[in-house]
């Protein structure tokens, strides 16, 4: 089966982020999106530990571990960027001041419920971080994930079996096979990877899909 690779997925997400947007890219797969943002376009990246206007990773040897992102990796600050404390940082999110948040996911339901913080395994040590705030905070919350698990199960589900991060918060999934819009009315396919038919995609998930292409 033809699939978009991770960089192609990231480029696809980046193509929908317009100049002037304030964006939070979650830890993991979504961080790749930064590499594909259009050169020269002013897109403002926020990181919940207290920085806005983040630039790329510093050159080797130039790392300053007082200037890190939410993944605790060293970053740089662009002209116009600023620092702020944690309560202000999450006010930016919760207060609806961010345009887009891109997150990874374990599962997403047809109506946009998100599960991405805990597998529910009894021996797992729980850690939530900013996941629940990110899920509900931005004007648009997008998920970037492979559509199937390693064992072939659909991560787009009727109802999440993993513990929830947020309810009805995800509006779009950018996967390796399709771009799918979610709403209270259900899941709508807006784009398919070349060579995959709508029927083939539908066969991979129990969630009823509508074809909007």
């Amino acid at each position, binding site marked *: 089966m033809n699939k978009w690779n991770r960089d192609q997925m990231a480029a696809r997400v980046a193509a929908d982020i317009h100049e002037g947007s304030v964006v939070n890219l979650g830890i993991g797969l979504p961080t790749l999106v930064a590499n594909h943002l259009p050169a020269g376009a002013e897109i403002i990246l926020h*990181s*919940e*530990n*207290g*920085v806005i206007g983040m630039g790329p990773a510093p050159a080797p040897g130039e*790392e*300053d*571990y*007082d*200037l*890190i992102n939410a*993944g*605790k*990796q*060293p970053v740089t*600050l662009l002209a116009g960027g600023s*620092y*702020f*404390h*944690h*309560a202000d*940082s*999450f*006010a930016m*999110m*919760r207060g609806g001041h961010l345009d887009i948040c891109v997150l990874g996911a374990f599962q997403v339901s047809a109506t946009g419920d998100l599960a991405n913080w*805990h597998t529910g395994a009894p021996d797992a*040590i*729980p*850690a*939530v*971080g*900013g*996941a*629940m*705030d990110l899920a*509900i*905070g931005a004007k648009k919350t997008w998920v970037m994930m492979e559509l199937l698990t390693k064992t072939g199960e659909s991560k787009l589900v009727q109802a999440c079996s993993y*513990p*929830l*991060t*947020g*309810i009805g918060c995800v509006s779009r999934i950018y996967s390796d096979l399709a771009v799918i819009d979610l709403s209270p009315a259900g899941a709508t396919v807006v784009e398919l990877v070349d060579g995959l038919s709508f029927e083939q995609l539908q066969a991979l998930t129990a969630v009823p899909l509508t074809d909007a292409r």
Partner: protein
Amino acid sequence: MIDKLRTSVLEALADIHDGATVMIGGFGGAGQPAELIDGLIAQGARDLVIVNNNAGNGDTGLAALLKNGQVRKIICSFPRQADSHVFDALYRAGKLELELVPQGNLAERIRAAGAGIGGFFTPTGYGTDLAKGKETREIDGRMYVFESPIHADFALIKAEQGDRWGNLTYRKTARNFGPIMAMAAKVSIASVHEVAELGSIDPEHVITPGLFVQRIVQVPRTATGPAGFKAA
């Protein structure tokens, strides 16, 4: 004359008692007041409740405080990291109580305590396991969860500059929890790399006004190291 400058870390931390709730600033290594934590280990107070975003990295700082058996409970958002083996072992052995709080709720609960707010309704966490048993309310068609303030006896924070009134500046993302923890504790103790003459910090640049800070202590300037992630 007001003089909040203490001559040593141990003097600044002397009255931290067994059973105290202690907020410790920092997000990973940035803003973690390593010298104050080392002082708390030397000082020896036990049965502590610690409030921090994480639960220690590697074997130093907060991880060393945990390893030393001084902590009864930790209130945090993200304990599990690539290098949180000290926390992981204590938690699995049942030797450490964990209250897991979404990061923004943690920040706002701390801010609320400092601002004299009795609690607040937040959309974060609604419908999730972390809101179980908590009061909920529909406000203008959206569902919210009631969260209560987190007060502390002491806050240990890392700042950049301070003066004898306790006015503070911070450095880059090391600011993180410092300003709000300073507000939320009865006694806030800041380490600073530079003690400024009163009036020499531009008032427009003071981030934490001195009334939120009870003690400052100068520590040598050392580069913050990496923490909390697996190097590629």
